[in-house]
């Protein structure tokens, strides 16, 4: 079946947005810090913290520092890009195009996901080099695949955050407040089972919680994470990510309509 004109335009818009995100990234030296330099620092500090704890703890160093760098790049970057559209005044001309804004956001999210993965890979290399021996992995293939899937789960939340930035210029304020709680609450730095029991239901609303727990199960032998284990973690991660992507699709249509009603597109 040949793609329709509308779907071709949408995929073109997605790739145009991805291309512009890469060009803007390359052109702006400030991105070097979160994407290239911060992962090196996170990796070194994390390794120093865990190095006396045995070989498997090297993985804690990698996962903690890797998530720290990926989390910011992917989740925060996706929302922030839309906030920047407001700041630059490009939200209006972009929304005046015949393509739904969601596809523009998707293009950026793809780039943020890739650059987040790059940050994670840098952490892995830095810790592995500091360790001086091969990093032990229980299931290397699952580890790599889940590492990438964690990014997708983070990106799905990032898309919903982007919608908030379209909705209101105050989204950055809300995101800044929720940043640390989200980071800890989803288990980016340490497993959510270490958090108070009452906070677990809140954590489980977010796809990265499930994906990160699955990743730890795949990487670390004897890991004691969420009680239902690896399989259900995986199901939960896929399901919640799909729910977030579906929410994003619906929310964007409504948010686009809302901002045209309110007339705050040029506010920043």
């Amino acid at each position, binding site marked *: 079946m040949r793609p329709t004109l509308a779907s071709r335009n949408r995929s073109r818009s997605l790739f145009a947005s991805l291309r*512009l995100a890469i060009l803007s990234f390359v052109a702006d030296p400030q991105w070097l810090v979160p994407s290239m330099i911060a992962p090196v620092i996170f990796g070194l500090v994390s390794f120093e913290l865990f190095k006396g704890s045995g070989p498997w703890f090297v993985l804690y160093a990698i996962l903690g520092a890797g998530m720290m760098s990926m989390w910011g790049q992917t989740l925060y970057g996706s929302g922030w890009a839309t906030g920047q559209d407001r700041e630059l005044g490009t939200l209006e001309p972009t929304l005046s195009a015949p393509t739904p804004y969601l596809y523009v956001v998707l293009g950026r999210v793809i780039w943020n996901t890739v650059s987040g993965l790059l940050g994670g890979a840098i952490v892995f290399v830095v810790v592995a080099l500091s360790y001086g021996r091969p990093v032990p992995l229980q299931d290397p293939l699952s580890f790599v695949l889940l590492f990438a899937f964690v990014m997708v789960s983070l990106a799905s939340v990032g898309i919903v955050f982007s919608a908030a930035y379209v909705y209101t210029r105050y989204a950055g304020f809300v995101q800044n407040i929720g940043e640390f709680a989200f980071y800890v609450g989803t288990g980016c730095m340490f497993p959510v089972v270490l958090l108070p029991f009452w906070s677990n239901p809140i954590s489980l609303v977010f796809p990265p919680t499930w994906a990160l727990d699955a990743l730890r199960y795949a990487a670390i032998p004897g890991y004691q994470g969420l009680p239902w284990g690896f399989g259900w973690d995986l199901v939960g991660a896929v399901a919640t990510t799909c729910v977030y992507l579906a929410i994003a699709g619906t929310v964007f249509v409504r948010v686009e309509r809302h901002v045209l009603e309110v007339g705050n597109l040029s506010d920043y």
Partner: protein
Amino acid sequence: MSNSPVITTHDLRRVFEARKGFLFNEVVRTEALRGVDLEVARGEIFGLLGPNGAGKTTLTKILSTLLLPTSGTAHVLGFDVMKDALKLRPRIGLVLGGERGLYNRVSARENLRYFADLFGVPIESRDRRIADVLERVDLTEAADRRVEEFSRGMKQKLHLARGILHEPEMLFLDEPTIGLDPKSARETRKLIRGLVADGVTIFLTTHYMFEAEELCQRIAVLSKGRIVARDTIQGLRRLVGGDRTIEVEAYGFEDAEVDRLKRLPGVTLANAEEFGPRLRYTLRVRTAELTHEAIREALRGHDELTVRERRTGLEDIYLDLVEEEAQ
């Protein structure tokens, strides 16, 4: 020029609501448009004039699908701006003035390429089309420079290039020459005329009266959210009292003298202004018969009397209409 309207609005209204107060519980409502009825014919340059805050940008954004009206209807190229926005957008272009609205870190060419993809400009002709519009706005040499290095005028040209990139049938221009030097502004006006020659309909808002006078076939004056006049410039001249504007200046006038001025044939008294010790009356004159001698005769005894005449300009018309609305 076909007479079929490409824009029709009926009783178009827009109310903005802003929340204020400590808990944002106080709602402040501002009526930006208060029942706008408008028709714009295919192939014309239609000018919209009005003071700051009159509702010009609000109307432009509604017609270009970037804002929804609170009530009323608006159709552009036969599409309902509320229901058919996605179908309408590829066929219209929008140029909002100012320094914002561009990706500053990348080049002008990359900005255009991005929007060309968003607007579905055919891939096979995209690069050629980008080169064409860059040449049309005289940005070919700066095409690969980052936009952050551009002057305000260059950014304005790039806005214009983006607006015409996808060859729209209808172009909305919100103060397109703001920030341009006189030469660039003249080239922009030439470009606008060229677009009309290519069959594009232009909806232009501007604060520059000479620009509207030079470009527009028909003009509407918007004041406090209402269209207070809509006609050709000639028709607007008739509306405000005549083709001729005569300024009469002296060191004060007696009431009886002012009465005599008002009773002169074909005269409408437009306004009175003080210039230091001197007072100036501006008269709009409908008839060719009234001579300067007749005015001097009505004000005999004023040795220092000055009488000057000029053709009633759009600025005169605009000020008459806006001031009348303000009163």
